[in-house]
């Protein structure tokens, strides 16, 4: 991911064409605005109707009855579509010093800093991308952005879009369905094993790093793909609301791993609906890193539809000052001999609040199913907060369900032990916190893991003393 390249504005790889002129909708959301978005994107009727239907549902749906307070969200004062060339960027001199310090300390290459800091419109890993693109195209793999997919592969998109997260699922998925833009579309044919992770970062540009990304991943029978989105370095955004929807289809015997790390800097409400449906003997894995945002609500779901399906969730949440991470996951066992493992680690400091919200539901008939949930929370000071709301719903006798949770502070004995070896309190605390999240970090690709560890070390310098 972190290969440096020159920033240039020519879209030579053809999967995304620049808009002819900048386009920004007026504040608020209504039919006119949704139609304008669709028109600007030159969409066909079916997509326009999909959006309008979603808008109707969005209006009718209530806000969630649980979780953080969303009352400050005023839909009339938000801008729901903003194309990259609309000049929403800031001057290099306006980038906050602590953001720059972070980039320097965690080793973000020069070329990427400007993009992440919101100074430049885009970043193409051109050289890296083109080589890889040839490779996966030969395999028959489709990896493109959603806007292009809608135009190029409409039948395929129509077959899957909204089937896992239907229009009326919840208020924010309905919103996304009405104003979505950007996101990834991935299709892996039968039996194909994609050996290197597909990264959203390859074709990242401001458009793709959007407020309302819509992503669909289809892994046909026996295939394998690993998709990675986001990065640990803080990404600047001046949008206040992000509501993405992700639908992943893991067919018989296939395996999909979806790694996502979000670190939105700024006052963002990040409300995401992610669902993975796993068929017979399929394997689905969510690796979910939640570092940024002011309010983050995200519960990646594993729908274990076919017998023998396996699902795993590794979730990491870090809540610092003024942050509320309401995260967790869901495992729904619908067939026999399915297994789910949900592991969540959260760290709260400086007044942050991290809540684990989870659901394990084992339906009647899902005999022989096993589920294990483990959520651990580390509270670094007495200003911070941790909650656990795990729902365990069992309607089948022949199952094994276990759930464990613990909340603790940094152990005095451990701190003393490490300091007795010459490490100061900050170093010792960093080691302990990094050790605490190790089971999740070890599942991340190396560059992400290194960056994340450095990020934690950096924030510890603010946490202690």
């Amino acid at each position: 991911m972190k290969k440096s390249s020159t920033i240039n504005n020519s879209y030579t790889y053809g999967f995304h064409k620049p808009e002819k002129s900048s386009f920004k909708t007026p504040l608020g959301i209504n039919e006119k605005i949704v139609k304008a978005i669709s028109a600007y994107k030159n969409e066909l009727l079916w997509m326009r109707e999909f959006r309008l239907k979603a808008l109707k549902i969005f209006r009718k749906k209530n806000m969630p009855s649980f979780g953080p307070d969303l009352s400050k969200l005023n839909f009339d004062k938000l801008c729901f579509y903003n194309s990259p060339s609309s000049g929403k960027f800031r001057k290099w001199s306006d980038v906050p010093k602590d953001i720059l310090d972070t980039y320097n300390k965690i080793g973000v290459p020069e070329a990427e800093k400007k993009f992440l800091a919101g100074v430049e419109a885009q970043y193409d890993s051109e050289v890296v991308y083109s080589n890889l693109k040839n490779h996966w195209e030969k395999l028959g793999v489709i990896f493109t952005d959603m806007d292009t997919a809608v135009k190029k592969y409409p039948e395929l998109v129509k077959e899957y879009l909204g089937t896992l997260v239907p229009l009326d699922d919840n208020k924010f998925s309905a919103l996304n369905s009405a104003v979505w833009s950007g996101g990834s579309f991935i299709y892996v044919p039968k039996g194909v094993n994609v050996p290197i992770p597909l990264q959203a970062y390859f074709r990242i540009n401001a458009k793709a790093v959007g407020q309302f990304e819509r992503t669909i991943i289809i892994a046909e029978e026996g295939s394998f793909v690993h998709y990675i989105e986001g990065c640990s370095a803080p990404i600047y955004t001046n949008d206040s609301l992000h509501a993405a929807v992700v639908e992943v289809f893991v067919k018989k015997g296939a395996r999909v791993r979806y790694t996502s790390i979000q670190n939105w800097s700024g006052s963002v409400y990040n409300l995401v609906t992610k669902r993975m449906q796993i068929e017979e003997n399929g394997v689905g894995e969510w690796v979910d890193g939640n570092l940024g945002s002011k309010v983050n609500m995200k519960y990646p779901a594993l729908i274990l539809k076919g017998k023998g399906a396996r699902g795993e969730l590794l979730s990491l949440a870090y809540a610092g000052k003024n942050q509320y991470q309401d995260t967790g996951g869901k495992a729904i066992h619908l067939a026999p001999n399915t297994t789910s493992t949900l592991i969540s680690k959260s760290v709260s400091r400086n007044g942050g609040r991290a809540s684990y919200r989870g659901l394990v539901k084992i339906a009647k008939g899902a005999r022989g199913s096993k589920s294990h949930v483990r959520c651990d929370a580390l509270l670094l000071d007495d200003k911070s907060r941790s909650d656990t709301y795990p729902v365990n719903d069992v309607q089948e006798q022949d199952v094994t369900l276990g759930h464990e949770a613990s909340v603790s502070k940094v152990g005095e004995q451990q701190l003393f032990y490490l300091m007795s070896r010459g490490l100061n309190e900050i170093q010792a605390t960093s080691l302990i916190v990094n050790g605490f999240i190790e089971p999740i970090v070890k599942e991340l690709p190396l560059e992400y893991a290194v960056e994340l560890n450095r990020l934690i070390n950096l924030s510890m310098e603010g946490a202690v003393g």
Partner: protein
Amino acid sequence: MSKGMKNIITKKNENLVLPIIWRGKEKEINYDIKLAGVNSSLILQMLLLGKNDDKVKIKINVDHQAIETKSKILVKGIVNDNASVDFNGLVKIEKGAKGADAWLSANLLLLSDSVKGRAVPALEILENDVKAGHATTIGKINETELFYLMSRGLSETKAIDLIVQGFLNGFLNYEK
């Protein structure tokens, strides 16, 4: 035991022990316990025996408000026939309740194939100088245990009886 909310507020140094047994009669069990006394503690042991069409909705709230408070909630349930148990436990540790120690464990043993069990052991922790944790298990009798006992010559019925007894012994001997 009554339906409706039972409210308890502890005093300084008070050690509260609450044994609760449900044999299928009540449809609701509600307890709201505030550990307001410094150094007060709670041991709540709940045994649930459900059969036929017994149904119960349980709500236990424990609120650690003072320093050095301790709570141990132990729930063991045996659910048979068409019975169903809906357990909701919320343990809250308020800011400033330093030295709090809270533990909740809920184990539901499902003995027939039409039972329903729901357990929501929730935690809200606003103080970091504490120890808090919980563990929940829901499931049928462990097959390995059953096999082991049967391999020693016990019939399935006898083996199940033994295992259920052992499960209950854990409850009765808890304080030791």
